[in-house]
């Protein structure tokens, strides 16, 4: 899990870490994919439940409120993917068509992300993937996935 810096259009939106999400972004900067894990039953979970949701407060398996941040193995497989053709933001104009993917990590956690280092046509549900980290600003690094060797 190496951290690489790729040239990125500065106009693309950069996440703004806050107190709740700092462990995720700190982890990414250090090359670790941070998930939520239940201390009571060891179940791993995605950090947030969906669009606009806060960091998970409860375990999805046992309802315990005793959750912690824990690193994923960084390995998983492609659960599903889509190809974005609609232009919503000029910053992505030269990327179209680009993929958005849901990866299921080896811990059983589905994350919305992006697959890099793979042509859209070569994406196949079930393919093995490994996390990579992309530095999108001086302070912020985000996880993406590439085909696993």
């Amino acid at each position, binding site marked *: 899990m190496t951290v690489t810096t790729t040239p990125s259009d500065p106009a*693309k*939106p*950069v*996440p*703004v*870490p*806050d107190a*709740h*999400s700092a462990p*995720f972004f700190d982890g990414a900067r250090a090359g670790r994919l941070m998930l939520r894990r239940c201390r009571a*039953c060891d*179940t791993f*979970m*995605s*950090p*947030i*439940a*969906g*669009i*606009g*949701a806060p*960091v998970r407060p409860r375990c*999805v*398996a*046992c*309802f315990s409120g005793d959750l912690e941040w824990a690193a994923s193995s960084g390995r998983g497989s492609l*659960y*599903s*993917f*889509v*190809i*974005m*053709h*609609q*232009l*919503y*933001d000029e*910053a*992505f104009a030269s*990327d179209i*068509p*680009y993929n*958005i993917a*849901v990866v*299921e990590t080896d811990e*059983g*956690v*589905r*994350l*919305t*992300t*992006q697959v890099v280092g793979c042509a859209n046509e070569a994406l196949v*549900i079930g393919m093995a993937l490994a996390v990579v980290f992309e530095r*999108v600003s001086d302070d912020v690094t*985000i996880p*993406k996935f590439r085909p696993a060797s």
Partner: protein
Amino acid sequence: MPMPSPTGDRAPVLRRVRRAHDQGEEHTPVTAAIAGLGITEMGKVFGRTASDFAGEAIALALEDAGLAADDVDGLLINANQSPEMVPTLQFSLGLADLTLVNVMSAFGSTAATMLQYAAHAIAAGQASVVACVYADAPLREGGSISQSGYSGRRFDAPGLAGLRFAYGDYGPANSGYAMALRRHMHLFGTTHEQLGTIAVGQRAWAQLNPAAQMRNPMTIDDYHASRWVVEPLHLFDCCLVSNGGVAVIVTSAERARDLRQPPVHLRGFGQCAPGDTGRGERDPATHTGASKAGELALRQAGIELADVDVLELYDCYTYTVLVTLEDYGYCAKGEGGDFVADGKLGPGGALPCNTGGGQLSSFYMWGFTPLSEGVIQARGQAGERQVAAHDHVLVSGNGGVLTFHSTTILSPHEGGA
């Protein structure tokens, strides 16, 4: 029921679900009815606010019922993208002394939850005439949809909420539904040819509906040729976006009998929100709450699936119709593509579905699109597109990304007794 069951000895999520509905077959009949329906102009109608559409829709529904604004003692508002759909809409509309008021939100499944709440309040004597309304005005003259409230464009989302935009994952729903469809295609071999029959069938229905936005013909070739929005969703897999408003007036079955229109009885309700753990135990992409919600609603109505004459299914995308049909039990899981391929959902088909054109071709008012067409069909007032047998109309709602489901059974016949 065909929900995926927890695997191994992982703590079952299902155990938290209280199963009161499974304890007995007895259900109290619903005794409320829809007495009025109002539908405003739809689509690219510019220069009007959502509140204005809401007011007109309620006025039209009251006139339809033969009631006046003074008769209204309940107002239920469908929360949506409009900042005007808030409790103070009551003030803008000048409605006074209400005993039931709320803004309700379960995304695209909200309409049925409003009807449920209204029916229960009426049965309990807490309100007598409840206006339920949906209105929105996201389209601006000269603007495109991707610049409307439906773009999902939001750069200032703090923390992890902003992560999706860094990937270019815009739009509140397209990518989620496209993800689900890709999964269904992968698991079951569902094809665009099959999905296209849904879009083509609904457009054929829309051509018979003077109120529909999209009335030009569509062939399967047109469907295939329509551009990708978010692959595997073609443009013609996706619903419209509309300015406009729809309202219904709910009252007791007894009172509805004496009003202007034939009552449309609310015969059965069911909701199911299976949840989404983001883990393998559940897969809302391919297994929705329609299975449980449908079972509950049919049981309360005292009918079987085979008794349903007309289907008005929530159709934010063609795929939503297909997966909902599977989960209601019209065919086995995974066979939805084969099931719809013969065009049975279209005019003249064996299973009339989305008879006004649905949200794909008539107008996009969330759950009020299938509801309004269901009311028109149940009354027998659909003109050229009227389905001959309309004793039972099944209306579905779906929201989130296939994570909130509601089912309503409408009928011109009173139940119970």
